[in-house]
């Protein structure tokens, strides 16, 4: 039995595993980053083509699957159109109110920032939605820690690693994410953390503060380099910590991270 473990097959396996463990150990020192840079440079055009092609294929597939539903949907849309026309008038009034509220909460609209548009070229292949890879990097002035948003100033994550022509964006749902956030309606402050790629939790909210289901959660601007006022998501469920010292909430992100194609890095304010 012992001889079996000294067979060439086992020796090769254990030697290769030892090499891999060595590589994992060397990794935190970023000794192998130059190799990764070269490889990513070669992979970059392929990644872009693959992502854009598969996105188009995905659109075609969803179109094909929805053909049967189009007729009924069209009827519904005609009815909804009438309703929406009346709501437009109402919303025009609310827009003014919204602007006033933004001023009161000192929220800054996305247009006040210097943004760099990027295209997503790769995603976390484990299906956890932990990260995205975008097609701009050091050569476009992207730096680690810069916040990343989508249209309307919705925060989706931060730049985690920067390469020559690409960057890795760590999404809010990643377990390493921790951002100061606040309830836009009540001002309750807490720390937003990622739930291992499966969702978001607003934690460490004092029991004296008020959290309501359906409230919008925005960045508070405290600590770090994420400005105040970027929308994150909506409170779906409120819960208390085991020791009852704090309360928390399950937060549903405002956008589906796996469907993103164009995103913006916040390089600074105007």
């Amino acid at each position: 039995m012992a001889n079996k473990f000294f067979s060439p097959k086992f020796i090769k396996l254990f030697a290769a595993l030892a090499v891999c463990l060595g590589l994992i150990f060397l990794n935190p020192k970023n000794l192998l980053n130059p190799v990764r840079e070269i490889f990513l440079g070669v992979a970059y055009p392929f990644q872009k083509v693959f992502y854009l092609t598969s996105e188009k294929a995905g659109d075609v597939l969803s179109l094909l699957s929805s053909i049967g539903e189009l007729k009924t949907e069209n009827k519904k849309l005609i009815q909804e159109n009438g309703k929406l026309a009346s709501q437009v008038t109402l919303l025009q009034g609310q827009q003014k109110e919204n602007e006033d509220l933004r001023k009161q909460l000192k929220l800054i609209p996305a247009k006040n920032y210097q943004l760099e548009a990027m295209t997503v070229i790769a995603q976390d292949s484990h299906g956890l939605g932990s990260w995205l890879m975008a097609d701009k990097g050091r050569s476009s002035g992207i730096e680690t820690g810069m916040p990343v948003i989508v249209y309307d100033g919705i925060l989706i994550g931060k730049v985690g690693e920067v390469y020559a022509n690409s960057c890795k964006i760590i999404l809010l749902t990643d377990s390493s994410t921790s951002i100061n956030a606040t309830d836009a309606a009540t001002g309750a402050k807490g720390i937003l953390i990622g739930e291992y790629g499966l969702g978001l939790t607003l934690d460490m909210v004092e029991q004296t503060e008020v959290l309501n289901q359906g409230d919008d959660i925005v960045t508070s601007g405290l600590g770090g380099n994420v400005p105040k006022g970027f929308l994150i998501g909506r409170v779906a469920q409120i819960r208390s910590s085991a020791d009852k010292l704090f309360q928390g909430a399950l937060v549903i992100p405002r956008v589906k991270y796996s469907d993103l194609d164009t995103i913006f890095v916040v390089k600074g304010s105007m």
Partner: protein
Amino acid sequence: MYQRIVTFSLIFLAAVAQVSLAPSLFFGAVPPDVVLLLIVIWSSRKGFEKFWLWALLAGLTLDIVALERFGIDAISFLVISFGVAFFSERFFVRQRSWTFLWVTSLVVAGTLINQIIIGLLGVIGPGSLASAFSLRIGAFKILNNLIVFALIYRPIVSLRSVFPAEESRLIVK
């Protein structure tokens, strides 16, 4: 040399495809493990001794392209390649139809082992074990891997540049 270039090109393109295929194309927005499928197919036919260096290289390639820590996918692929070759040498039978079903079951087992090893090695971060055993992700991974496996199995096996005629024969023990 030509055989090596073709094999590496396939591994490289599979790694790029794995991270760059839009999740919207697949059930549950969970992309398939294309490189893992190549490892299972090739290891089941070539054996560990002839394929272990390729398994190591494929793992490192995926680690680079998928922005993961060097060595994590490589460890997983080495273990899976060893296991697949071990069982293939003992249970492979001559009938081609059974071969396909046999490799299909190896794909399911390989997918689960890959999820567990990557979870244990912490590629997904703290608490990754919970994610590795997420029923939803595991189920969609297996489903999507089986769909892609059914699509690529024949073309990959029929590649003479990777499988010279003498290597295509099955081993019965």
